[in-house]
């Protein structure tokens, strides 16, 4: 098979440029208030779509396992907060559910 390196470089370029251009041209520049509000809302808007529906298919053979893991994250996150424990805990819960069901 012929080398894939040109393909990889092409993919790298089209991945990198959209990540770079806004940083170069928007950074340290005054932008209209409406635009600023839009940009500041992007993280929240992205999170919802990044989580749903993907999370429900995270363990495709047995979707309940991932849902149980997420359940732990929500419960612990709401009452105690933090990032590391909710993340590691969700992996542990998912692991146990999968272990019992396979």
């Amino acid at each position: 098979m012929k080398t894939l390196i040109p393909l990889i470089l092409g993919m790298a370029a089209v991945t990198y440029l959209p990540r770079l251009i806004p940083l170069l041209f928007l950074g340290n520049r005054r932008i209209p208030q409406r635009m600023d509000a839009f940009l500041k809302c992007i993280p929240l808007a992205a999170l919802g779509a990044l989580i749903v529906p993907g999370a429900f298919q995270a363990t495709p053979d047995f979707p309940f396992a991932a849902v149980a893991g997420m359940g732990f994250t929500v419960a612990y996150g709401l009452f105690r907060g933090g990032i590391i424990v909710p993340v590691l805990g969700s992996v542990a819960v998912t692991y146990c559910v999968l272990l019992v069901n396979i």
Partner: protein
Amino acid sequence: MKQKIGASLKAGFPIFIGYVPAAVAFGILAKACDITLLECFLFSAVVFAGASQFIALNLLATGMGPGGIVLTTLLVNFRHFLMSASLSTRLGEVPKRYLFPMAFGVTDEVFSVLSFTKGALSKTHVFLVELCAYSAWVGGSVAGFILGGFLPEILSKSMGVALYALLLAILLPEVKASGRALILAISSGVLNTWLVHLDILPKGWTIIVCIVVVASMGSFFMTFEKEEERL
């Protein structure tokens, strides 16, 4: 300083945990597709974009030419344009030369973690979070290629949940603090589910549509609230 480095590594750690199994899976698949170790390494080291690397392997297997694969990659990864634009409003004073390496590491998860860090972002913090993600991705890809499935199957499957749990854990304090955040996040998830179900947009674009629609909605609320305060 030491404390700050610790905090940055702590912020990057969940990304590390989430990326390792995905990267190992990429390495295994790359080997199964008869790609050399060098090519597998370069995919992860110079493209550094999870989903689109898997898609590229699939397209290669179907015999698609490089032009089509590069175009697909552009479409799949274009959402990062919006994410970088949003991050640019959060950076502190960062000299231009640092923006070039910084932009390289803007993935979905890095963006999410950085966006919900309080205060202006320092370049050290950004680089350390990116380094956690990058080392896991490149290291995991190479390890997967060489060692195959060295993680027990059930463990690697459950570690796949880590990325979603990370995003969820970032989101929770926001929705707990503000009903508006809850409405926006739910709208985005519901809209995305519907768009994925309709299956008419190319991969990656359902998220772009969700971001544009929901962030517009959010900015409308924000300016509306500000005007009410003024009255």
